[in-house]
């Protein structure tokens, strides 16, 4: 089994994180923005697991479990907000919500 250098795992996490960040910046559909946030959280978790694997400690995996619970709570509230948003504005374009008090 040829081992994998730590940098390559971290570079993959960096690539996925930057892709998620670009998605948040580029897309205006609220569903796609939430998906991009999920990509970023997943990349952060990957970086934790790579680091934990590097040191042979379970702490990285535990941080991933916490990120997973946080992502689940975040996405449930975010999708409930998306449904409210759609009922209020009849669109998923976030530019529709650029004024306070709708």
């Amino acid at each position, binding site marked *: 089994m*040829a*081992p*994998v*250098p*730590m*940098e390559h*795992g971290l*570079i*993959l996490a*960096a*690539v*996925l*994180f*930057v*892709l*998620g*960040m*670009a998605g948040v*910046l*580029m*897309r*205006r*559909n609220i*569903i*796609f923005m*939430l*998906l991009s946030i*999920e*990509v970023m959280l*997943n990349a952060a*978790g*990957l970086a934790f*697991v*790579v680091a934990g*694997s*590097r*040191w*042979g*400690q*379970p702490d990285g*995996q*535990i941080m991933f*479990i*916490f990120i*997973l*619970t946080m*992502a*689940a*709570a975040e*996405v*449930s*509230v975010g*999708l*409930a*907000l*998306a*449904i409210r948003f759609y*009922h209020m504005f009849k669109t*998923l*374009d976030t530019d529709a919500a650029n004024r306070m008090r709708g």
Partner: protein
Amino acid sequence: MSALFYLSSVVAVISTILVLTRVNAVHALLYFIVSLLSVALIFFILGAPFVAALEIIIYAGAIMVLFVFVIMMLNLSTQAAKKESQLLTPEIWVGPAVLSIILFGELIYILTVRESRPYLVGSISPKYVGMSLLGPYVLGVELASILLLTGLAGAYHLGRHDEDDEKKEDRSGGES
């Protein structure tokens, strides 16, 4: 093993790019599931089998099903996909893409400028993860449960409020 790592990395990056460029939300979700499965394979190769299973069960299973339910509830028309494709013109995505590429270059520079670190070590079994999770990190588990309860209450509140508004609208519509 190493070849599998690079192969699944390439699959993860390509499917993530496809997620961000799709117009149809359901297609994007399916590509994101492919991306999550390849990241789960990477976790397995890195010696984290417990987290690989959690990635598939919770991310690809539960969270993606939540997204599918919401897309079904919103009942988006084909017009929405057309409008979405109009929003993906180059003048909209070039600016964020350039800024992201600059940040990516900085990250790669930070990760490669120093001398190479030792290789990754072997597998960490779920036993040690569980012992550590309910040992030194037990307070974090309690806090995570409070966070999940708050998320549940928040999602319930935001989802329920809408029905009250509709009832009010119906009532006022009936009166007028």
